[in-house]
């Protein structure tokens, strides 16, 4: 299953293949937000996201002759952005800059106190690090569905997989994320008040 490509997208790819720099600029404008937001969502660092954006499009330009005009470049771009993001996080996992004051001001609950904000930052960091440990195919659906807020159908279309596969990957990713964080006793960071690891046994209490 592959995503259908719209004529404008195909035209951009043809222009890029013909070394048309204006075409490349239009390609950049069209997809920059997707790449940048993926990178920012997973690093929480504007500087890192800018570098990943630049590297992703530099690769796109370098491989322009291999981009097929009949296939959407979005899954490829998204995959490259994810790889670059995780490569960067792996290199300097601790060095990502915390959210700036501006970032905090944009949070829905920015009115909370410094302690709560710090807690939320730590929660986001824990989640990001958990996502980084998922397999690439699970990272892809989590990034598109949760970080970009796309629907199951949109995620399915971009990744070229069936909606049911998107759902099953989401279920697996969430379960895996929860298990990993619980094993590291970091679920508490996600919410701040949760107790430590919770056994995942099948025992069921009666009503």
């Amino acid at each position, binding site marked *: 299953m592959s995503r259908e490509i719209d004529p404008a997208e195909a035209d951009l790819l043809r222009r890029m293949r013909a070394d048309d*720099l204006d075409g*490349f600029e239009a390609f*950049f*404008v069209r997809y*920059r*937000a997707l790449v*940048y*937001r993926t990178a*920012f*969502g997973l690093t*929480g660092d*504007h500087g890192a*996201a*800018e570098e990943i*954006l*630049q590297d992703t*499009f*530099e690769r796109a*330009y*370098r491989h322009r*002759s291999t981009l097929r005009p009949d296939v959407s470049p979005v899954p490829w771009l998204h995959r490259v952005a994810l790889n670059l993001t995780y490569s960067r996080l792996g290199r300097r996992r601790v060095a990502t800059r915390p*959210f700036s004051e501006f*970032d905090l001001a*944009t*949070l*829905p609950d920015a009115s909370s106190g410094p302690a709560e904000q710090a807690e*939320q930052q730590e*929660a*986001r960091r*824990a*989640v990001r690090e958990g996502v980084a440990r998922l397999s690439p195919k699970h990272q892809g659906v*989590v990034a598109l569905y*949760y*970080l*970009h*807020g796309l629907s*199951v159908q949109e995620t399915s279309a971009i990744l070229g997989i069936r909606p049911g596969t998107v*759902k*099953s990957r*989401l*279920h697996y990713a*969430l*379960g895996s*994320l*929860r298990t990993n964080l*619980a094993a590291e006793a970091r*679920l508490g960071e*996600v*919410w701040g008040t*949760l107790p430590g690891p*919770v*056994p*995942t*046994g*099948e*025992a*069921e*209490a*009666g*009503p």
Partner: protein
Amino acid sequence: MILGRPSACPRHRAALLDFVDRREHGPGTDVALAHLDRCRSCETELSEIALLITALRRIQAEVRLVEPSQDAWERVRLVAARRPPAPWRWRMSLGATMAGAALAAVVVMPAAFGRLAAPGPPMAGDGASGTADGPPAAAVALRVYDPPAGRLTAGVVTILAGDDGINRPRQARTLTFLPAATDRHEPERARRWPATTSEGTPIRATTPD
């Protein structure tokens, strides 16, 4: 798990997750919710996953507000512009360089050797008249073929004559060197000139047998 039925939880969790995450109410949702009322394990797991989803949604709320900087395109453009050329281009450049080098080897090198080996004026009795063409500068030829003058090394002569030394007798008539003054304009005629000294005496140096 419901006592005696350990597989009940996994069967319901997908439906519960769809309901919690997307408010999807499918055919199995009601049964799963009824199971949730009785199952502490599912309740705990679903609560934790709901927290994870909330954390992810908060990240999403931040992500939706961010945009790349205004100069992002300019930086990408510069990176793209300074990229090395595509492989076929550098292969062409390499090919052109090699062709140029080959051309230089064919055209320039013989001319250079000819100039180094420029002989003296033509000999009387030879096809070309020394007087008619004017005496070419013989100094170069003398330097080459008059080692006692001490101006050239044996190595140079060896290269020119294809010999291993200058002391071995050579056939003057086989020497085909260009006078320095005429090497560019009359190469054919010049090549027929036997080497002579500046006084017109044939040089005793010979080519190898």
